[in-house]
């Protein structure tokens, strides 16, 4: 009997301590719920560039806390280096580019080396190597049942100025390790994806007397003229099923926003203002749009019903909010926070809702422009310029993870992904 008392006494002391430790662990995991993962390179020719892409993918996913060390190992082995046993997962990979690109990945449990996933990928070219890595990380993320990150595998399309009066439209992966010019010659601007699958894109051509919107199939090269306009013409947004466009047009020399129906070729004027109305983006299940207007005497973000005259100011902050993007009821906008005609102005990004509530800053230093939501709204892409040059930045809104990739290209005109 005394022994039982002694046992209960020990348990009563031990169990609360264990649960107290658990509570502490739980709090820490609430702060950072990412799982620890180490990358082990089993390639015959090991590359820091390949490691960096894997690491970036894992980091920006918001689901993994990747070990920064570039470990080397055997792709076929299940042996776990004792130093890595504290990692929840080990991602073994082997990449070969002797002919095309072949990638093999294996996901092991860090604790015992048991295999959770294995897959091989191959493409006939070397230049799209980053997409293989993005696909592999997206697949591993799916296997572990985390929220979808297939945006990693999407193209970024962007226009850059080549020389005065000339531009090029290029494709890239999100890290800009892959880049390809798909439209060169002349002045071609404002590329915008035409469909979720990224089979085609819209762009504005200045080849004729008037700006003309074209649709280009990026795989077949088939090109279709959509509409022309006096003054300016931009495809600002495409609705979810790809049947309607929000266009900035200027048939009377005034930049206004129109909804263009692709099946009928008809256009409906959504704004009619004697100043500047541009940058229409669908919100609230496509019943409304947010847009940039100078109707208060400076550039700011407003919301308007597509079908009625109801218009409201969305942003109540800043004096020059001249670009925005939207996803669902989320809005991101860039705000010029100085007014220097000699350049060097600070631009910062802010996140708000279409209802005008909950504005919060996303950046605090440098020049941050061209904000674009990923197609699932989880990530924001932007261009950052600072004393150290230009970078393409990404902000994961859920995890607050951010990444910057050097952008050593020409001056960017517009971007979409």
């Amino acid at each position, binding site marked *: 009997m005394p022994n039982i008392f002694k046992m209960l006494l020990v*348990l009563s002391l031990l169990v609360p301590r264990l649960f107290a430790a658990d509570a502490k662990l739980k709090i820490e*995991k609430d702060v950072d719920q990412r799982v620890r993962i180490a990358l082990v390179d089993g390639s015959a020719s090991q590359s820091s560039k390949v490691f960096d892409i894997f690491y970036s993918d894992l980091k920006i996913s918001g689901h993994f806390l990747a070990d920064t060390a570039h470990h080397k190992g055997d792709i076929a082995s299940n042996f776990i280096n004792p130093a890595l046993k504290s990692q929840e997962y080990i991602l073994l990979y082997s990449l070969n580019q002797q002919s095309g690109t072949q990638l093999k990945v294996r996901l092991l449990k860090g604790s015992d080396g048991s295999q959770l996933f294995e897959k091989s990928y191959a493409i006939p070219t070397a230049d799209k190597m980053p997409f293989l890595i993005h696909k592999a990380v997206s697949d591993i993320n799916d*296997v572990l049942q985390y929220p979808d990150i297939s945006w990693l595998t999407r193209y970024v399309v962007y226009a850059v*100025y080549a020389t005065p009066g000339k531009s090029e439209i290029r494709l890239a992966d999100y890290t800009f390790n892959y880049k390809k010019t798909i439209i060169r010659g002349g002045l071609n601007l404002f590329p915008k994806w035409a469909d979720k699958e990224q089979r085609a894109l819209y762009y504005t051509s200045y080849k*004729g007397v008037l700006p003309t919107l074209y649709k280009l199939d990026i795989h077949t090269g088939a090109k279709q003229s959509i509409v022309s306009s006096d003054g300016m013409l931009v495809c600002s947004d495409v609705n979810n099923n790809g049947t309607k466009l929000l266009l900035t047009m200027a048939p009377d*020399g005034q930049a206004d926003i129109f909804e263009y129906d692709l099946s009928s070729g008809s256009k409906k004027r959504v704004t009619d203002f004697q100043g500047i109305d541009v940058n229409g983006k669908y919100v609230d299940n496509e019943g409304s749009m947010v847009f940039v207007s100078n109707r208060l005497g400076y550039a700011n973000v407003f919301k308007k019903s597509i079908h009625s005259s109801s218009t409201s100011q969305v942003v109540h902050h800043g004096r020059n909010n001249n670009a925005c993007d939207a996803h669902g009821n989320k809005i991101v906008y860039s705000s010029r926070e100085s007014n220097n*005609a*000699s350049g060097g102005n600070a631009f910062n990004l802010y996140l708000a809702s279409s209802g005008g509530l909950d504005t919060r800053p996303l950046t605090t230093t440098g020049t941050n422009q061209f904000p674009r939501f990923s197609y699932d709204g989880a990530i924001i892409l932007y261009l950052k310029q600072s004393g150290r040059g230009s970078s393409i930045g990404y902000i994961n809104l859920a995890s607050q993870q951010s990444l910057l990739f050097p952008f050593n290209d020409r001056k960017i005109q517009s971007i979409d992904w």
Partner: protein
Amino acid sequence: MTQKLLIAAAVLSLLLSGCAQNAPEVEGSGSNITDGSDIGGDTVSIDESGGANGGSSGNYNSSSDGFRSVYFGFGDYGISSDMQSNMSTNVRVGSSASAKIKIEGNCDEFGTDEYNYALGLKRAKVVKDSLAAQGVSPSKMVLVSFGESSPVCTEPTDSCYDRNRRVDLRLVR
């Protein structure tokens, strides 16, 4: 016996505490398949050089056909008094022109995206309205904004930026 119970209880407690690690449970090994088909699809590369008009015409950096460019202040689209002489010339040339007049709005490099193109358009529109008010037929004029795409000067100086905030005029050929 008691010692064994204590050890068992401690081990059980430790195991319970380990349950707080909420790593997702997954199925066993995935299939070893090749899957790159959705990545390998090739994309085109097209050349849009040529065409009768547009910023690639070679005349992007100044007015032509006797017209004179009109310059604007930072962020402005009002014609200032010191541009009236240029506008008088443009009225004279425009009134006698037999071809259409293309009025091109341009901006410095500091604006972004669509708003800068709309600002260039406002500049072109104010020049068109002024010409129309002084007798040039509106039906003879077409407007195009080139935003910041066609600078005549690329040096990072104030005088350079001043030269880029302009409206160029030329005849459509």
